[in-house]
């Protein structure tokens, strides 16, 4: 029976020769992830299982990133619950302040997710690791608890939608604009329960950072996972983060897809998702110059080094518009340090932006940049639901780092091309 890439990884981890869409399977896990919001709930559930021990102390990752560095006493208690559990069970991959980062940027950077692996995380954006050709999906805290105890989880094998990418992106268009325009076209439940499988000759030109940002937002179309084929770029990336062996899977030539969508990357333009759904997209150039109070550059979608480079290139010598608060948060300590070494942090500060320690911060309305009633932000994050960045009467517009930086310069939602000519794409 022909299988998609996702189905092959699920089959291999469940000991089945072949699986098909709709089938319920139990599969072995290569990694179980939790954060300071979801892990405390999971730990409580875990303790209800009589005599439970963790299945493998090297296959659990605990990351305090949402409200850390601790925002208040309650956040401190939650982080402490996770830290205590990590100590008690001798969890190898617990990341304290100082070596932490936003989980979905941190885990790949630490070589904890490689091609062909199967990862669950009690965080919806766990789907990010599809970028490296792994199957990864978000679950809840109870699934995390059971996963930590047994090393296994149940899955319904998903059907797939295939996105065949051709051509090459031009101008300021990036992976973020591509995924926003896809969600705009298919809707926030356009891929509900399905896997989004990216494919085609256009993939080769997408950087790893772009693939991460695309796979990251698969959940915003309702998908179970988003996945990229393993190619030269993936292998080079894997070799740079880990020396562990890994397996490569690829879709069968006659695999079944529910539908195939062809996208010419040359047609992608800087895109913005208006409030209050990621599918409410318009071209940045057609945004009508909406005035903004805050610009947020960071998150597990776009807080990687390439994102910061692009933003800095636009802010350099221009500066943040008067009356606009621009917050940059590098996704991990390593990215932060790189940004310091490359002079990007200097550029941001000279431009009038603030640079924060890695944290989820304002992305989920946690801390470090909450919006007041009636305020608007352009953000490189992934969600613009009601109240996502603060007051229920505030608004979030989702965009790429280039569009966000250009908007910081003008104080209005702006196509980056209107501020600066795009560099040649490598």
């Amino acid at each position, binding site marked *: 029976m022909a299988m998609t890439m996702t189905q092959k990884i699920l089959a291999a981890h469940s000991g089945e020769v072949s699986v098909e869409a709709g089938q*319920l399977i139990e599969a072995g896990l290569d990694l179980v992830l939790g954060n300071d*919001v*979801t892990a*405390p*709930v999971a730990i*409580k*559930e875990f303790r*209800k*299982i*009589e*005599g*439970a*021990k963790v299945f493998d102390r090297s296959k659990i990752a605990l990351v305090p990133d*949402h*409200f850390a560095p601790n*925002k*208040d006493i*309650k*956040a401190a208690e*939650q982080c402490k619950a996770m830290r205590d559990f990590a100590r008690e069970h001798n969890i190898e991959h617990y990341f304290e302040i100082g070596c932490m980062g936003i989980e979905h940027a941190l885990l790949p950077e630490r070589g904890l997710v490689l091609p062909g692996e199967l990862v669950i*995380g*009690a*965080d*919806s954006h*766990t789907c990010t690791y599809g970028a490296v050709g792994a199957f990864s999906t*978000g*679950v*809840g*805290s*109870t*699934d995390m*608890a*059971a996963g930590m*105890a*047994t090393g296994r989880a*149940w899955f319904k094998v998903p059907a797939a939608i295939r996105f065949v990418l051709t051509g090459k992106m031009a101008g300021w268009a990036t992976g973020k604009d591509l995924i926003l325009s896809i969600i705009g076209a298919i809707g*926030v*439940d356009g891929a*509900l*329960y399905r896997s989004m499988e990216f494919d085609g000759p256009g993939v080769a030109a997408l950087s790893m950072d772009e693939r991460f940002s695309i796979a990251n937002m698969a*959940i915003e179309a*309702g998908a*179970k996972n988003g996945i990229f084929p393993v190619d030269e770029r993936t292998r080079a990336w894997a070799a740079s983060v880990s020396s562990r062996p890994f397996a490569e899977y690829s879709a069968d030539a006659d695999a079944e897809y529910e539908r195939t969508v062809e996208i010419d990357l040359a047609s992608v333009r800087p895109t913005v998702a208006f409030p209050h*759904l990621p599918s409410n997209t318009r071209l940045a150039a057609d945004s009508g110059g909406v005035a903004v109070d805050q610009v947020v550059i960071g998150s597990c979608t776009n807080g990687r080094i390439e994102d910061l480079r692009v933003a800095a290139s636009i802010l350099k010598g221009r500066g943040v518009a008067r009356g606009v608060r621009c917050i940059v948060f590098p996704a991990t300590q390593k990215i932060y340090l790189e940004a310091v070494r490359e002079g990007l942090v200097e550029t941001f500060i000279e431009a009038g932006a603030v640079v924060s320690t890695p944290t989820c911060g304002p992305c*989920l*309305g*946690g801390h470090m940049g909450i919006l007041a009633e009636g305020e608007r932000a352009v953000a490189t994050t992934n*969600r613009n*639901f*009601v*109240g*996502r960045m*603060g007051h*229920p009467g505030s608004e979030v517009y989702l965009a790429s780092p280039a569009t966000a930086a250009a908007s910081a310069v003008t104080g209005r939602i702006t196509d980056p091309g209107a501020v600066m000519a795009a560099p040649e794409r490598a």
Partner: protein
Amino acid sequence: MKMANGYRVWKYGDDVDTDVIVPARYLTTSVPSELAAHCMEDIDSGFASGVMKGDVIVAGRNFGCGSSREHAPIAIKASGVSCVVAASFARIFYRNAINIGLPILECPEAAAEADSGDMMEIDLEAGTVSNLTKGATRNAAPFPPFMRGIMEAGGLIEYVSAQRKAATVDGKDERA
């Protein structure tokens, strides 16, 4: 399984996300009653104070989309809601609801015809949704047996615990 008899409907639209079910600003706690106090706050400020034990949430497509926070179904369950009926559910919410034992039913017809304040009766075993106000009974999509097993055990943790006990009795302690 429990049955809800003639309970009041709270009706919402499509794409009700977990950020409005429980805003992130309250995620520094996981105490069910504290979460319930803010349930649906950002789209319906009257919900938390007005909801009564047994009431039913009815919504459109993609209910529970967004973050994986189990705080969302926990808040709904703790607020006394006996069942959520929707045209469709976001997958992580669906999974979480089953894992924590919050009854949910996918039933587009019942979701479309219900209005806030309608009286509704739900039979989970039969999978039927009766709108007493509108005088219509609809069939919901049945749960696969595997998921029914988890729900009947009382949730995933109870299910896993029972499996481990059985394995120990068989003489092969999987904890080893």
